[in-house]
């Protein structure tokens, strides 16, 4: 991590960049926040550890509007989002100096708490250089441990790989964290009866409080004004008035990012109600892969997305029934 700080200071000093977009140490051991650093002194607050899950690429939409170049730290999975944003002219490549940072999986404090660990005072073992599989957690109620893997975000278990799709330089080692099949959960649901599926999603979506965190954090949701905030479709927008509204919102949210979603997993990470929102996006990804050929949004900045292209031989919508 110190290497990142040193390099950031160098780049600030030699004028390559005028600011740094990274993560700032939080006031608890697990809540660093995305932050701009404008000087070498401010960089003393910089942190990069297992809790730096936030994908900084979307912040570069604003970053691109600022004067001068911004140094941005991107994890391997974040670089897909950045590419996609370039493709959609939402960020300016020339305004960004990208350091691809290593990643050994990102942690979710909710997963630690779910293991019955309360009153956390300090967590060690989350550092990026620490080569340990155990997190040691000091709490008000005694010392606890858990494995790194058990505290990892879902997305890291199905990691797309630790390669940066776009960068100016790369710093730091990564560790492969993939230990599950990306589509296993989707297949499990697909195999359910319609009644079971309906019950499953009804229950999950009933938790939705329409806070819009999933939308606002999503790098693909970069509309100036979401259709759900416009008066064209008069949606309930922020009110959880009827179960239909939740379904409508989540279907359309996923549909709007279909073919553009890089599966960065931010939506699931931020949901205050723990709704596995990636199940929607990933369903579309799976369908696109199966019906229109493998496609990974954000793997490049040129390719045409699957919903803005077609082939004459595309499957008919009836395939949905035939495949069952």
């Amino acid at each position, binding site marked *: 991590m110190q290497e990142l700080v040193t390099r950031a200071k160098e780049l600030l000093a030699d004028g390559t960049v005028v600011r740094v977009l990274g993560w700032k140490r939080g*006031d608890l051991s697990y809540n660093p926040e995305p932050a701009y650093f404008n000087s070498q002194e401010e960089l003393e607050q910089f942190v990069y550890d297992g809790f730096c899950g936030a994908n900084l690429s979307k912040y570069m939409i604003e970053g691109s509007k600022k004067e001068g170049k911004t140094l941005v730290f991107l994890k391997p999975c974040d670089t897909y989002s950045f590419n996609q944003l370039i493709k959609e002219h939402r960020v300016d490549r020339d305004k960004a100096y990208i350091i691809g940072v290593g990643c050994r999986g990102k942690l979710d404090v909710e997963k630690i708490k779910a293991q019955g660990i309360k009153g956390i005072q300090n967590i060690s073992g989350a550092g990026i250089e620490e080569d340990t599989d155990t997190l040691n957690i000091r709490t*008000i109620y005694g010392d606890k441990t858990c494995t790194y893997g058990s505290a990892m975000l879902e997305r890291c278990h199905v990691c797309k790989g630790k390669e940066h799709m776009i960068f100016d330089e790369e710093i730091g080692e990564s560790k492969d964290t993939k230990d599950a099949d990306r589509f296993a959960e989707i297949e499990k649901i697909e195999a359910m009866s319609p009644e079971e599926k309906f019950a499953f999603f009804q229950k999950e979506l009933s*938790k939705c409080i329409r806070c819009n965190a999933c939308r606002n954090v999503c790098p693909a949701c970069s509309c100036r004004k979401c259709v759900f905030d416009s008066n064209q479709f008069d949606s309930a927008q922020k009110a959880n008035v009827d179960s239909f509204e939740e379904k409508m919102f989540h279907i359309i949210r996923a549909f709007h990012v279909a073919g553009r979603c890089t599966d960065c997993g931010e939506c699931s990470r931020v949901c205050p109600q723990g709704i596995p929102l990636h199940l929607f996006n990933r369903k579309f990804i799976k369908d696109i892969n199966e019906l229109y050929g493998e496609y990974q949004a954000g793997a490049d900045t040129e390719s045409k997305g699957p919903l803005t292209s077609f082939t004459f031989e595309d499957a008919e919508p009836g395939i949905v029934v035939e495949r069952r």
Partner: protein
Amino acid sequence: MYKIAKENLSALFQTIAETKELYLPVKISGQVNFAAWDEEAEVSLETLKTVKSPKDAFFPQSETLYTCKKEGKKITIDPEALKEKEFVVFGMKACDVKGLEVLDKVFLSDPVDTYYAARREHGIIVAMACHEPEESCFCKVFGVDCAEPAADVSVWMVEGTLYWKAGTEKGEALTKSVESLLSPVEEEKKDGLAAGISELEKLELEKQKIRGIVEQLPYTQLSLEGWGKEENLDEKFNSPKWEELYHPCLACGTCTFVCPTCQCYDIKDYDTGHGIKRYRCWDSCMYSDFTMMAHGNNRTSQMQRFRQRFMHKLMYFPVNNDGMFSCVGCGRCVEKCPASLNIVKVIKAMGGDQ
């Protein structure tokens, strides 16, 4: 003071539910929130903080105000009926109860919000002590004692026994209705031979233990110096710190929707095809269309919206309400903010201003 064994609680809930609506922390798909009780409900009283605060029970996220119906060219208006049935909210925490005091200031002062008032009138609160406070809690900063929740009924859960103490007339009435399931606590009896102390003493020890833990919490020593005073208003408002602080904010409504004191709402119409339902729903000052008017919005940047939330909680509200902050230190926003921003970071960052 009464008590009931933990294993008999479901009988208690059943009895309450026979005559009243009962809301309590229920786990659904892995998350605990206040919900109506039924026999299948997975009740989770151990959960310290429900994701959303229980303010829904009094001020629902969405509620219909009235319905317009159209027949031919005639329009009729039916106001929604006010709450008439008694209901019990079981397991609210001291901070949540304090949150209601904040809401009362808003909704029960003139003009009275009749929908809210009806719910307050018919709602019976059973508040529970926080036996294992966590690192995100800072209720003590706002003068809340989580060991001694004051409500219609206060309850403690010690070693598998729920202790029950009515605090108001409503609470007495509720106690009466379930008396058959409760047994009185005999103040003199030293039940634990080894401990040799009475149950009341044991309860006092538990409260002290809780207060001890609270002292150790990282945010407990937070200073509110400078906040809530009119003379500092301009200085806080104009502080350059806001510009640095707001950056990570995603402009989602998580903090406002989990907050026990946020009380802003929007009023919208829904066309059902047969008429219009006018409903109100929580709004969030984090949203770009909050207080949107025909000419646009008086807060045009996210910094201004971000500032609004904290200035409201820590300045405008206390200035207008005899120093009562509209934050109760429940720490839900600390836990749930997707960008790890929170009111504590704001208080700390701005604390050094004066």
